[in-house]
């Protein structure tokens, strides 16, 4: 299996605090991998490092064998890494459809002048954006709510919309930051179906969850992150049976 994302000896310091310390792992194409760990373990920081939100202090991040250290987020998105956010970061001032359409930004190229004059190629591109966005909305059964303001959706659908928006960037790797947090049972099931659909379409998933049980049921492989380092890793089924994981995360 080709190695899609490779993190090597990654370190991140905020002042004197090492949020991430000597962290290494690989994600191969087509996998669903999960990172679990308590609050403050550095899970979201890790995502922010991979997507270029924070500059890294030490180590390397390779995507498809290419060093992506400290590239700005928009370029990383263009390379094919997309993400969702722990606290929903939808464009609340825009409709459901428009949110997904923004996701197409990095795969399209009409500039201000061709948009302003409605050049023929811009109209063609605009049609493509619309069709593709509606197709993606249908994946999460949100196509019926396309014209609603995104802020008016219930939380579960907002989280699904965020995943769909990330999917619209046509990523190779999608980073999901606590996608199931705050969701009820049926919403969680919907979300899981979406994950499988995403994996079927050939997109690799790396997800963060505090809910270790749910995460390890979806993912094939898991890492346990504590105070910035990986303390335990293994196939998900094995982790679920691990006494330390059971004790700390599964309440047994």
């Amino acid at each position, binding site marked *: 299996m080709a190695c899609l994302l490779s993190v090597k000896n990654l370190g991140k310091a905020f002042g004197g605090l090492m949020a991430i310390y000597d962290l290494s792992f690989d994600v191969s194409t087509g996998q669903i991998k999960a990172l679990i760990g308590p609050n403050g373990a550095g899970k979201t920081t890790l995502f922010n490092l991979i997507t270029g939100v924070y500059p890294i202090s030490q180590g390397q991040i390779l995507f498809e064998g290419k060093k992506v250290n400290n590239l700005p987020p928009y370029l990383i998105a263009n390379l094919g890494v997309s*993400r969702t956010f722990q606290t929903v970061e939808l464009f609340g*001032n825009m409709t459901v459809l428009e949110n997904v359409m923004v996701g197409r*930004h990095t795969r399209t190229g009409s500039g201000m002048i061709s948009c302003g004059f409605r050049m023929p190629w811009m109209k063609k591109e605009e049609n493509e954006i619309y069709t593709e966005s509606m197709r993606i909305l249908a994946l999460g059964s949100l196509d019926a709510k396309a014209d609603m303001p995104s802020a008016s959706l219930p939380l579960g659908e907002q989280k699904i919309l965020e995943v769909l928006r990330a999917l619209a960037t046509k990523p190779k790797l999608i980073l999901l930051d606590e996608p199931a947090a705050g969701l009820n049972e049926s919403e969680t099931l919907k979300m899981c179906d979406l994950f499988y659909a995403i994996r079927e379409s050939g997109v690799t998933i790396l997800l963060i969850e505090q809910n270790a049980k749910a995460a390890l049921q979806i993912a094939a492989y898991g890492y346990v992150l504590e105070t910035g380092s990986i303390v335990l890793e293994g196939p998900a089924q094995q982790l679920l049976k691990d006494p330390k994981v059971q004790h700390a995360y599964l309440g047994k």
Partner: protein
Amino acid sequence: MGKRNYLKLLWLSLIVLTAPLFIKGDYYLSVLVFMGINSLVVMGLSLLMGYAGQISLGHAAFYGIGAYATGILTTQYHFSIYSAFLIGIALSVIVAVIIGIPALRLKGHYLAVATLGIGEIVYIIFNELMELTGGPSGLSNIPIFHIGGIPFNTSFRMYYLVWPVVILLLWFSLNIIHSRVGRALRAMHGSEVAANAMGVNLSVLKIHIFILSAIYASIAGSLYAHFVTFVAPSNFGLMVSVLFLMMGVIGGIQNIWGSIVGAVLLTALPESLRVFQEYDILVYGAILLAILLFMPEGLLEGTPRLIKKATSRRKG
């Protein structure tokens, strides 16, 4: 953009075309011309502030650069109006790039203060560059427009020059709003971190929209200079920047149509406030306060909302 916007654009064109049939007299027509000129500036501000979420408190600077550039080039260097017009736009673009690259790294209040400072600097330059600008006493004898041998020497003729420009730029703006670029602008306004993660290059987008709004202001300034044939620094000071901003806020800056409503109303207002003499500034303040309190989205979107609310209360 959808059918509704084309329909609205058609309506506006009809109103613009026929308005001089009902509004007669050079004075009233000149007010209509100023409405158009102000609309141009406020449309640019609406794109910059209402859609992209970037504040500018110094937009009169670009308005002034357009006005002075064409004014100076035509009176002192005998350029044709066309080339002076284009040089004015180019100059605004250059200034916007130089100012925009550092200033647009700032956010919120900091950006507001920075643009305010820039507006003041440009205002001082207009005052101090005596040989070029004529200093505080201004620049006079700016020639009027001639297009194809027709002199635009009356308000009536200027009206039919300015408002088509307004409609053209409104069409251009609407096209941008309903496009990939417009969505990126609003996305940036909604969440910078998410927009960036979707592949939006924030700094480039901010510069682009800043340049575009500077071009709008510059075009307005050039039209102003060749209409009034006289410019002085006081036409481009802080109060003018604030006035543009007020037009936007009162009409509804998050909606490009609102910016036109605001520009039209606030251009007409001083004319109807003559009775208050120097207390008119109090009336301005009261209006702004009332708008911000009762319809922060501006008159265009706020009025129907309030009417709806009032009627539903009466029924219920």
